[in-house]
């Protein structure tokens, strides 16, 4: 029999005893729905975790530290290092060398310091971080109000939300970060001027002074002692224009962690602000070239992190990346998905017994019909295929309905969870994800399970002796 005729005949037969067949189909639907619901939950949770980690910017970042700082993350690195003093300095030439690695997109120094800002003559003390232009495309700044820096050394500033609230005298309680929309905070602040007071580190007087960036005003010499310390510290002020307010969580794992004010990286570098590491340098002999405490290296793809780490270690620095942490995370989710899938499949297995039952019943009921079909020329194969087609049709139908049902169940669970989260004063989250491959796979799976369930009934129907089948009324 031709496939089209077969399908048509099968669907026709299914319509005939519609109550029983639709009950069986609902059984399959529930099985598929539970499978889809379980797997979607697993995938959704994994996506949620990955999203959190990805927005931290650490998936494609290697953090480089100098071994002489004794701040390496790995004890092995420290032990294997001959002597801290012999190690390389993490300075500009090292940065350029790292940036030249084929897999590296860019390498930039991690500049951060605590300093005072004045806004409408009130002092505010906070952590400042320089961020590279590439951060514009990073989703860490996706929730920004206003705009990103116009250039890499523009006298502009982006504020973290809680600092913006502080400037406006609107205290934000912990856990209530989402109470005030970012837009509301940004409105009165965007375009305003903010004054940053900071301590500039100058080379010894014998060398030329650093170039003074635009907008820099007063310079008050203080604490200058060229004979003892190898550099001078000058208090300066820098006027900055507020161009953006970000909703970035200050505690997120981004490179600029805990900073609440962001400057363009080049501007931050040119200011030569005293760095915490400078104090340590001052204990030793001073070099003309400044060194960095850490350098962040952005890698083209997370897959190349390991290669980059190896290359940088060969150059004589310590490295750290989150790669190992995420590997175990992925493993955890793979196992979670597996278990959720097994539980989901159990329901489908129960449903498949329903298919076997329905089809075996159909054979008893349609014994005579099978006999007639054989008497008028249906081959064993025709009868077998017909029962197969009926099982398959129930499977596909059950699969489609089941996917829709599973999607709906997931939606309801997600909604319920978010209501719960809201009560706990937590931001809503999407735990739920039904990717297209899951939709397709679930329907195909239901189809295959149904065909397997139809194996025995179909074979039994095909074996039926027409003389016997036609003898009884």
């Amino acid at each position, binding site marked *: *029999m*031709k496939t*089209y*005729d077969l399908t048509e*005949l099968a669907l*026709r*037969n299914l319509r*005939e005893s519609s109550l029983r067949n639709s009950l069986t189909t609902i059984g399959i639907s529930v099985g598929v729905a539970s499978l889809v619901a379980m797997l979607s939950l697993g995938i959704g949770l994994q996506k949620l975790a990955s999203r959190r980690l990805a927005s931290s910017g650490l998936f494609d970042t290697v953090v480089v530290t100098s071994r002489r700082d004794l701040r390496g993350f790995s004890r092995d690195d420290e032990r294997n290092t001959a002597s801290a003093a012999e190690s390389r300095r993490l300075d500009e030439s090292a940065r350029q060398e790292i940036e030249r690695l084929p897999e590296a997109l860019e390498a930039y120094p991690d500049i951060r310091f605590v300093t005072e800002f004045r806004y409408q003559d009130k002092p505010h003390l906070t952590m400042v971080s320089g961020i590279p232009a590439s951060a514009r495309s990073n989703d860490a700044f996706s929730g920004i109000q206003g705009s990103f820096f116009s250039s890499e050394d523009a006298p502009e500033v982006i504020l973290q939300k809680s600092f913006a609230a502080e400037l406006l005298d609107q205290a934000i309680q912990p856990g209530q970060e989402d109470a005030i929309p970012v837009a509301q905070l940004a409105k009165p602040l965007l375009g305003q001027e903010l004054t940053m007071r900071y301590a500039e580190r100058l080379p010894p007087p014998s060398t030329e002074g650093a170039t003074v960036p635009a907008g820099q005003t007063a310079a008050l010499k203080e604490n200058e002692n060229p004979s003892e310390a190898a550099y001078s510290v000058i208090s300066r002020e820098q006027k900055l224009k507020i161009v953006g307010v970000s909703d970035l969580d200050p505690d997120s794992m981004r490179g600029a962690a805990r900073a609440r004010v962001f400057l363009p990286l080049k501007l931050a570098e040119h200011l030569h602000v005293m760095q915490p590491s400078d104090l340590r340098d001052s204990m030793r002999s001073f070099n003309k070239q400044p060194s960095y405490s850490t350098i962040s290296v952005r890698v083209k793809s997370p897959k190349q992190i390991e290669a980059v780490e190896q290359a940088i270690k060969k150059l004589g620095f310590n490295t750290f990346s989150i790669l190992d942490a995420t590997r175990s995370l992925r493993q955890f989710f793979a196992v979670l998905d597996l278990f959720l899938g097994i539980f989901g499949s159990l329901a489908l297995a129960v449903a498949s017994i329903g298919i076997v039952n329905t089809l075996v019943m159909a054979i008893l009921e349609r014994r*005579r*019909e099978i*006999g*007639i*079909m*054989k*008497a*008028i*020329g*249906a*081959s*064993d*194969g*025709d009868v077998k295929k017909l029962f197969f087609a009926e099982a398959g049709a129930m499977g596909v139908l059950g699969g489609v309905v089941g996917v829709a049902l599973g999607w709906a169940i997931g939606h309801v669970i997600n909604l319920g969870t978010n209501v719960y989260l809201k009560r706990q004063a937590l931001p809503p989250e999407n735990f739920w994800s039904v990717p297209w491959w899951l939709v397709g796979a679930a329907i195909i799976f239901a189809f295959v399970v149904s065909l397997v369930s139809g194996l025995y009934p179909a074979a039994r129907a095909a074996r039926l002796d*027409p*003389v016997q089948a*036609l003898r009884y*009324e």
Partner: protein
Amino acid sequence: MSVDSDPSNHQSGRLALRAVEVCRHYPMGETLIRAVDGVSLEVRAGEFVALLGSSGSGKSSLLNLIAGLDRPTSGAVIVEDRDLAQLSRQELAKYRLRTVGMVFQSFNLVSRMTLEENVELPMRFAEVERSQRDGRARQALERVGLGGRATHRPSQLSGGEQQRAALARALINQPKILLADEPTGNLDSRTGTEIMDFIREFNQSLAMTIVMVTHERALAERYAERMIFLADGKLIGDQPNPAAVNTSVREQRR
């Protein structure tokens, strides 16, 4: 004017089917039932044969063997130079589909399908093109006078109408042999005659070989040109019936 007027078609014509010492035994409890026990017979192409006997004489079992629904325990049933006993299940199904058509005492229409679908069913198994099927099914139903009933279900029809639909279904794949198992057994004599007239018309206008099982001797004498008698699975008589032969359907209708 009819095929019967050509004697070569009967006496010296080629064989439609041949049974050689065919047996069908099956166990029932302790005893062995000899439903068909060493029957040999030949039916020529275009012949109208009646198998007569009381119930349990083995006439229906013999018909099932000829129909390829059952296999003989021993012996051979040869149709178109092929021994049905040697055919595979697949080949046997194809034989039932193309070479023979069958009608039964209880009509055996698929109750869940309309008449048109019932008549169409053998064409589906024969993989006839869709575009041809509708027309052929309608034509076949019109031929048996059911043109206006194509979309009815068997349960909505009288017994005679159901048997006419079964005849249309049996003929739809243009078989060479029509096998009828008590085709009038469930019908009153008037509708029974109607059905028999149709069968005779197929025999005469299509030159179709007819093998009909019946226990009504009168019916056989009126329509069949040859009567074969069975008892206890054995052939006990085989006689021509020239009386039936010359009455054509058209003359009767007039």
